[in-house]
């Protein structure tokens, strides 16, 4: 049955990719979903279709330039306008972007070089706390005790240092990645995973407890307010003048910030994607694969495994550091709660669901898990609570919906979702939904005379 389904899908894709059909399908999808989202800003199915239409730009076989143009139009024009209409969508897309970058970073460590990292959120936390500390009043409050009130203390830095701190976040996280990498180089496999877990927990506990002797992190209360970069003068006005009739209401300052952070996140993600692509297809990327597959043989081929492993840690960490800075500024608040082991496993779930080592797969994984987390589950929760209030009864067993426990809130069951995804993927599809091309080849052609070796064995390093 699976085979027939597969062949049907293949036939469908062949049909869709003939001549000019893909252009029509893609544009049609975009127009349709845009109209739907524009018409009912609260409907989730239409938003899902909207996201799907974005992915169709990538899937369908079209002219490269047109593809690029459509994507840019979609990301820079459509999303901000529709997002201004309903800011929640912008939030969802922002989160997708953040988690895509995180998942791509983890993918370099786990997917490319095969080092399992359970403490990945630590690097994200370092980025977030870096700007959280310097971008708030905290440097002037080192001797103050923990308070939740905003004190009338001047901010430590001008808000526009934020842009500099994105780069600083990259550097600091990368250095931390090296520091973690150095001692653990001699450890492999499951022990490495446990060490990174311990490392992640230590960073979180430090964030939780460093409110004394000097108050660096403000303890469990977290740091707030954290400054956002200043909105360029006149941009908001211009934007309002241009699109106010389309949006339907004046775009407020905070909505404009949402758009700004979305655009910055987009920029970071695109950079990350380009870096990852280039790395994957480089000498370094192939060396990582070699280390992942067999470290001993890789060493015999003249690959300096230690140096490359450290590199993987540093590159992976740096993505998270940049996103951390961005996250701190967009939330204007950081607290240790954000950087738990649960979140680290969440990012790992994205990587594994999408396909370890596959760039498209990882982005799809991040999108699916994020949507599931903050949209589908939440709407399901809403549905349940409506059901509870409606007073309906399940007929045969005579169960009153109003008796359903208030604690049963699907949006709080992330762990179950992550857990079930991880187990099912490991058992049925360890390569992920969209396996990396190289992995797929390895799995299907392993029995033959290993064409991989003849293909690029000679130019490994």
């Amino acid at each position: 049955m699976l085979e027939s389904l597969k062949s049907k899908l293949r036939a469908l894709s062949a049909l869709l990719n003939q001549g000019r059909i893909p252009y029509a399908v893609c544009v049609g999808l975009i127009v349709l979903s845009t109209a739907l989202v524009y018409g009912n800003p609260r409907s989730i199915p239409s938003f899902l279709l909207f996201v799907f239409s974005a992915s169709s730009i990538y899937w369908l076989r079209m002219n490269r330039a047109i593809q690029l143009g459509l994507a840019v139009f979609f990301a820079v024009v459509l999303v901000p306008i529709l997002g201004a209409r309903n800011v929640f969508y912008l939030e969802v897309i922002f989160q997708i972007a953040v988690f895509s970058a995180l998942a791509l970073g983890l993918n370099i460590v786990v997917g490319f070089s095969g080092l399992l990292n359970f403490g990945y959120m630590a690097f994200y936390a370092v980025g977030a706390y870096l700007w959280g500390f310097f971008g708030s009043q905290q440097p002037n409050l080192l001797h103050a005790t923990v308070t939740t009130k905003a004190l009338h203390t001047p901010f430590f830095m001008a808000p526009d240092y934020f842009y500099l701190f994105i780069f600083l976040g990259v550097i600091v996280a990368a250095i931390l990645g090296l520091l973690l990498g150095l001692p653990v180089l001699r450890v492999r496999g499951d022990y490495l995973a446990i060490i990174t877990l311990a490392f992640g927990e230590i960073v979180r506990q430090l964030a939780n407890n460093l409110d004394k002797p000097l108050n660096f992190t403000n303890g469990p209360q977290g740091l707030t307010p954290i400054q956002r970069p200043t909105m360029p003068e006149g941009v908001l006005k211009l934007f309002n003048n241009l699109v106010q009739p389309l949006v339907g209401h004046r775009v407020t300052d905070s909505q404009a910030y949402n758009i700004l952070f979305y655009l910055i996140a987009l920029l970071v993600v695109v950079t990350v994607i380009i870096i990852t692509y280039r790395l994957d297809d480089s000498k370094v990327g192939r060396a990582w694969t070699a280390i992942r597959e067999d470290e001993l043989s890789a060493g015999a081929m003249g690959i300096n495994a230690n140096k490359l492993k450290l590199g993987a840690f540093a590159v992976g960490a740096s993505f998270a550091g940049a996103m951390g800075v961005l996250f701190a500024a967009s939330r204007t608040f950081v607290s240790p709660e954000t950087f738990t082991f649960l979140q680290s496993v969440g990012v790992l779930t994205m990587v594994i669901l999408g396909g370890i080592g596959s760039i498209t797969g990882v982005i799809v994984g991040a999108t699916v898990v994020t949507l599931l987390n903050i949209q589908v589950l939440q709407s399901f929760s809403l549905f349940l609570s409506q059901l509870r209030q409606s007073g309906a009864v399940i007929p045969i067993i005579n169960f009153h919906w109003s008796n359903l426990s208030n604690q049963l809130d699907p949006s709080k069951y992330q762990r179950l979702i992550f857990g079930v995804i991880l187990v099912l993927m490991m058992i049925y599809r360890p390569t992920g939904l969209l396996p990396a091309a190289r992995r797929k080849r390895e799995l299907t052609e392993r029995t033959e005379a290993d064409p991989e070796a003849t293909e690029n064995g000679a130019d490994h390093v």
Partner: protein
Amino acid sequence: MRKFMGSVDLRQILLPIGQMAIFVVGAGALCSVIMVILALLCRGSGADHLLQATQGVGIFTYTVGNLPQVLIDGMTIGFVYAAIALGYTMVYGVLQFINFAHSEIFAIGAFCGVEALIALNGLGILAKAGTIGSFGYFGLALLIGMAASGGMAVLVERVAYRPLRNSPTLVPLISAIGVSFALQDIIRMTESLTTGQFYRVIPTFGNFDAHLVLLRIGGRVIDIQVKSVVVIVAAVAMLVALNYLVKATKVGKAIRAVAQDKHTAALMGIGVNAIISLTFLVGGSLGGAAGVLYALKFTRIDPFVGFMPGIKAFAAAVLGGIGNLTGALLGGMVLGMIESFAGAYLGTYTMGAFGAEYKDMVAFLILILVIIFRPNGLLGEQVSQKA
């Protein structure tokens, strides 16, 4: 009866008791000596002056005065860690993989035991039970917790680990993490659907909260809570039983054979799958019992209760040398002692700058340091460096 007694290998019962005694005394004495030396060195320091100003005692008197209580606490928690660590170490010995879900197996045991006690309490049985009876009912709760955990461990192995037995190392580990997370939420869901509550509190009954006076020195009283005694006695009994099972019975021989070489063991007519299931059953029920004991000691449990003790017990297993049963005992004891000492003295010695909240971090630091510098652990016999 005589024949039965004759076949019992007394050496295998006395040996682990002796080992445990040595570990407890050794770890306790070592920590105490270090602490006393530290106290002597710190005389006249800022911490000393602060203590004299606030409590009217010098740092040396303070340290020595608190030692007995700290040692008893360390021993109690050490035995709990040892019982959990055995679950990790047994599975690692047989399958060479970290059963990350063991911490949730522990939590399930704790919940089932506590729910049983709450149910008994609701029926009014616990209130009427005398001192002896309440021990009996606690024993019943312990058995229920063990059964639930053991069953769940076997189920988890069958569903999530067995299909992955021949995969690369990291695949079952990721699956185990998934199981661990899923189980946390399943416990939470069950609890919230049936009781509507997030955490459960063990009912007060019997004389578990009473204090037994051990010693009177001058005006000072050194005492131990009855529940600590229960925890220690129950843990020692289980550890001895486990040691006997593994070292002195035919089944134990089969377990050791499978741990050494699965294929050869299968050729010798050992049902490898059955033995692996049995390992999970035994390790799981030990974890479940530890969960009920933990609940007795700390009274309050929530669905995420397993994570911290789980990771600490894993640290203990690694510290002792994973795959090595004696090592798990030693590691648990050392970790329990260090944690208890850190919790008691860290705040005083650093004048409140780093308090007891750093005691969790101590376990993580030990874990990292041991893995980096001595991955085979203190008693290591198994080389566990695998790609």
